[in-house]
């Protein structure tokens, strides 16, 4: 089986689209469907799905871009760590271009700070082993997709007795933030396209409160056009029959219980903490800090730095965009002051960021 072409087969797309049209014609009102994940936003634009849906289905982008929700003060904090002697920061590439309050990691790097870009957290392990005397700090960002990788890094470092590696964690978890957002009534969401990759780790359970308490239909979705179309069909069918349940369209990647090994590692290495979501605010139990048992791998426990006060960028409406209240094109900075060359907010940096997606696919 080919895992890409079948899910892009235009003949199948047309059949699903026709079914969506039939079912949505029976709806009595316009509905809002939120794709939580920035990867879905990108795929929807890339494959032109936004242009083929019936008019009464409105797609809204949610808060699911790991770089976008990372607070500006985390960048400021990372920059302070980069200034310490004998420290090398190891980070995913997207993060280096995100503007902090006064600088960015890429600017610090060009001015001589030791900052390495990696594709996998495990690269920081070999960096640590090859650089005795140098403290390697891995910047842990991302949701349940990347947190288990950081956890695996810490466990591996511990079992190998490595002492010059630590994690500066800004990891976040989806359930509390999503619930808070959907419960806020800032935006009326009739159905959720749930992130396939996050769900492959967490399983279905993180959506049960949303489905049970808020009565919002939810479908876990893959990333190819036919995945997304089928998910929209499943949501529209639930909405029409006035049901709210969790369904799994992405069965080739997601099991009901998720990835138990990854969950165990994550739960062992991290503890839940209140976390600040950029543009949204503090949400209890929505972040992950390195647990006390692993203090010797927690950069904040090994060294403390003074972080300068955060300077908020005027005019940037990323918060409202990530909450689905506004679209990137509603922002007065979009495409003028704020572009991928000179991003004002993180949403314009990451390929999963709403603003970057809108900019790339602008008409």
């Amino acid at each position, binding site marked *: 089986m080919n895992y*890409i072409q079948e899910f892009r087969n235009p003949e199948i797309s*047309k059949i699903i689209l026709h079914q969506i049209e039939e079912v949505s014609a029976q709806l009595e009102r316009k509905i809002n469907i939120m794709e939580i994940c920035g990867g879905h936003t990108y795929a929807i634009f890339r494959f032109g799905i936004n242009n083929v849906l019936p008019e009464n289905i409105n797609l809204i982008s949610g808060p699911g871009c790991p*770089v976008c929700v990372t607070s500006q003060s985390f960048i400021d904090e990372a920059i302070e760590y980069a200034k310490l002697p004998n420290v090398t920061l190891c980070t995913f590439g997207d993060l280096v271009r995100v503007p902090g309050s006064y600088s960015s990691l890429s600017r610090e790097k060009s001015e001589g700070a030791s900052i390495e870009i990696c594709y996998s957290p495990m690269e920081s392990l070999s960096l640590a082993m090859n650089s005795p005397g140098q403290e390697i700090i891995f910047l842990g960002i991302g949701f349940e997709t990347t947190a288990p990788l950081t956890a695996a890094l810490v466990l591996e470092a511990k079992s190998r007795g490595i002492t010059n590696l630590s994690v500066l964690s800004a990891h976040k978890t989806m359930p509390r933030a999503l619930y808070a957002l959907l419960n806020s009534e800032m935006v009326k969401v009739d159905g959720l396209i749930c992130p396939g990759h*996050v769900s492959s780790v967490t399983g279905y359970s993180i959506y049960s409160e949303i489905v049970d308490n808020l009565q919002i239909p939810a479908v876990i979705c893959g990333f190819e056009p036919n995945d997304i179309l089928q998910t929209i069909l499943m949501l529209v069918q639930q909405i029409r029959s006035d049901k709210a349940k969790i369904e799994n369209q992405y069965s080739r990647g997601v099991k009901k219980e998720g990835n138990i090994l990854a969950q165990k590692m994550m739960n062992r290495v991290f503890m839940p903490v209140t976390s600040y979501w950029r543009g949204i605010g503090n949400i209890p139990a929505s972040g992950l800090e390195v647990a006390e048992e692993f203090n010797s791998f927690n950069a904040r426990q090994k060294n403390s730095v003074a972080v300068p006060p955060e300077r908020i960028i005027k005019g940037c409406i990323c918060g409202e965009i990530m909450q689905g209240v506004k679209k990137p094109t509603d922002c007065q900075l979009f495409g003028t002051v704020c572009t991928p060359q000179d991003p004002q907010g993180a949403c314009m940096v990451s390929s999963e960021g709403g603003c970057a997606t809108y*900019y790339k696919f*602008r008409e």
Partner: protein
Amino acid sequence: MAKIIKAHGSGGQYSRELVRDIFLKHFDNQALAELSDAAILPLEKGRIAFATDSHVIQPIFYPGGNIGKLAVAGTVNDLAVSGAVPKYLSCGLILEEGFDLEDLEKIVLSMAETARLTGVKIVTGDTKVVGHGEADKIYINTSGIGIIPENVDLSPKNIQIGDSIILSGNIGDHATAILLARENFTVHSTIQSDCHPINAITEKLIREISGVRVMRDPTRGGVVTVLNEFVENRNFGIRLFEETIPVSQEVMGVCEPLGLDPLYLANEGKFICIVAREEAVKSLELIQCFDRGKEARIIGEVIENPKSKVLLRTQLGTDRVLNVLSHEILPRIC
């Protein structure tokens, strides 16, 4: 193992030995053997095409090529898509002190082989050595001269509404091969860079097809960047058809999880050619006769509206704009 030392760039005995034992040995031709300050070359009929390119790449050896092959093919291809028959190259080397002489010879040998394949002669050169840490192993600049036959005049100004767009083969191979060849990437694949001279194909094409309007090689920035250059400030646009764009399964398999789009990735052995619609099929068949043109496809057409834009007709039948990328593509996080 012998290493490059500063004296190799000093002009003294070491420099002479380097020239004799490596460059003259492999680049073997009369113009170079004179070892004078400038190569003296005969004039030919037609117009001269002149191109230069500096090559820096990490890693310097990668699946499908190395910096030497790239340095020759890169400049030859720039001449070839200009409609020229490539004739002469220069070779300027900047070497880092401590660079392995054996590696240098491998690179020079590869340059010589590629030059032979294309029919160009490397007729003049220069070598400088900088201190350890002042450069990354080896940088190569090549400049090239080619002769444009009489009656050949390729230019974006020739493009007409209704013309067809041909792509000479699978895209994204070079960029993906390089990405995976970097040490920190632990994905294994069989993807090879497409780094290769294309002048045999382009020379035949311009000899036999009168309706060739313009050609370009989609290196950095990929296919989308080249096509946007064609339509910028012009009274036409371009539409591509998603299902016709040739991408290998392997490249797609790497690009999808990383969030990379092959339309924006660099190629080093492909060209885009705009031809009159009535000659499109003949041109395609001609390109497909070559081993390195087997995957060639007609991927789009020049359209009247919208103007100055490149559109992609997706498999769902919708159009979306292909904008030029404003920054380097980075793999996505999750």
